[in-house]
C-alpha cells in the first residue's frame, strides 16, 4: 500500500493535468482521474503493476489514463444512441464554450488570467478529435516520444506521427488569428511553390 501511495503522490498532478487536457469539463476529468487510480490499484493488487523502479510507472499510468479515456468515450457513444438529440445539443454547446476548469491564479500572471492565445490554444486542443488529442497531449504537453506513445496507445509509431501532424495542422488553422503572417497569407490566398 505504501508503494501505491508513493505512486499516487508522485503522479497525481500529472495524471490530473492529463485528465483535464483530454476531457472537456471538470466532472469528466474527475471521473477519469478516479478511474485511472482504481485501475492502477487493481493492477497493483493483481501483480500487474510496474516494476518497483518508479521511473517505469509514468508511461504505465499514462497508458491506463489513455485507455480509460477511450473506454469512457465508447460508453458515451452508446449512451448517445439512446439520448441522441439531447447529447447533440449539449455537445454543440460545450464545444463552443470555454472548458470550465477552475484555474487557480499564478504569480507569473499578475491578474491571474491566461493570455488570449493560451485560452484559444486550450479551447482548440479540447476541440481536437479524441485520437489526435491523446497523441498531441502526450507528445507536446507530457513530452513522450512518438515511439513511447505508440507503445502506450497500442498503435504503430507512424500512426502516432500522422495523428500528431493532423493535430498540429488543425491547431495551426485555429490559431491563425494570432499570427499576422498567417492572416495575410489567408487573405492573399498565397499558394504553395
Amino acid at each position: 500500500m505504501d508503494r501505491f501511495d508513493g505512486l499516487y503522490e508522485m503522479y497525481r498532478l500529472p495524471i490530473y493535468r492529463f485528465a483535464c487536457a483530454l476531457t472537456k469539463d471538470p466532472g469528466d476529468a474527475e471521473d477519469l482521474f478516479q478511474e485511472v487510480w482504481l485501475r492502477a490499484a487493481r493492477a497493483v493488487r493483481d501483480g500487474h503493476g510496474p516494476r518497483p523502479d518508479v521511473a517505469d510507472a509514468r508511461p504505465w499510468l499514462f497508458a491506463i489514463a489513455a485507455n480509460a479515456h477511450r473506454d469512457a468515450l465508447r460508453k458515451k457513444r452508446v449512451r448517445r444512441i439512446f439520448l441522441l438529440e439531447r447529447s447533440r445539443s449539449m455537445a454543440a454547446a460545450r464545444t463552443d464554450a470555454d472548458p470550465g476548469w477552475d484555474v487557480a491564479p499564478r504569480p507569473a500572471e499578475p491578474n491571474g488570467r491566461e493570455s488570449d492565445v493560451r485560452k484559444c490554444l486550450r479551447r482548440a486542443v479540447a476541440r481536437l478529435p479524441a485520437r489526435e488529442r491523446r497523441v498531441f497531449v502526450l507528445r507536446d504537453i507530457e513530452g513522450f516520444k512518438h515511439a513511447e506513445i505508440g507503445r502506450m496507445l497500442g498503435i504503430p509509431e507512424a500512426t502516432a506521427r500522422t495523428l500528431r501532424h493532423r493535430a498540429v495542422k488543425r491547431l495551426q488553422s485555429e490559431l491563425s488569428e494570432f499570427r499576422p503572417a498567417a492572416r495575410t497569407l489567408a487573405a492573399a490566398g498565397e499558394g504553395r511553390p
Partner: protein
Amino acid sequence: MSKRPRCRDIERLILEREESRLTAGDEKLIGDHLRVCSRCRDFEAALAGMREELPGMIWPSPPAGLDRRVLCRARGVLAGEERGPGEARQALPRPVLAAAAALTVLLAVWSTAALADIGPGQILSDLPFAAKAALLLIAQNALMLFFAPVALRAGRPWAGGPPGGPAPNDADKRRSL
C-alpha cells in the same frame, strides 16, 4: 532532376526534427523549401508558437476532497474489498443462469401464442387477458432495456465512494441522472 518535395513531407520533417537529428540532406531540403513556401514557414511559426505557449498554460489542481475519495476507494481495492470483473461474473451460479434462460424461452413461446389471435382493428379493451399480459410484458422489457444503462450507472460502485465514505460530488450526481 529530383522531384520537388511536397509541403506535407516538409511539415513531417519539421515535426521529426524536434525528436531526432535529421541528415544534412533533409536539413537542406527543409531550408530550400522554407525559402520559397510561405505556408510551410507559417506551419513552422505556428509550431514554434505552440511550443512557447504550452509550458505556460495553467492547469487546475485536483479539487478538495478528490484525493481523499480516490485514495479511500483505491485502498479498498488494494485491501481486496472490491471484487474484480471476473470474480463478479463468477458470483452468479450456473443453475440460476440456466433457469433464467429457460424462463425467457418459455415466456417468449407463451407471448407468441398469446399474441397470435390479435387481428387488425382490434382495440385493447377487446383483447383477451393473456394478450394484454403479453403486451404488458413486452412494454416492460422494452422500458427496462432503455433505462437499464442509466440505472446501472447510478449504482456504479465508485460514483458515491465507499460505504460510509464522502457523498458523491455534483458531477457524479449530474451524470447519474
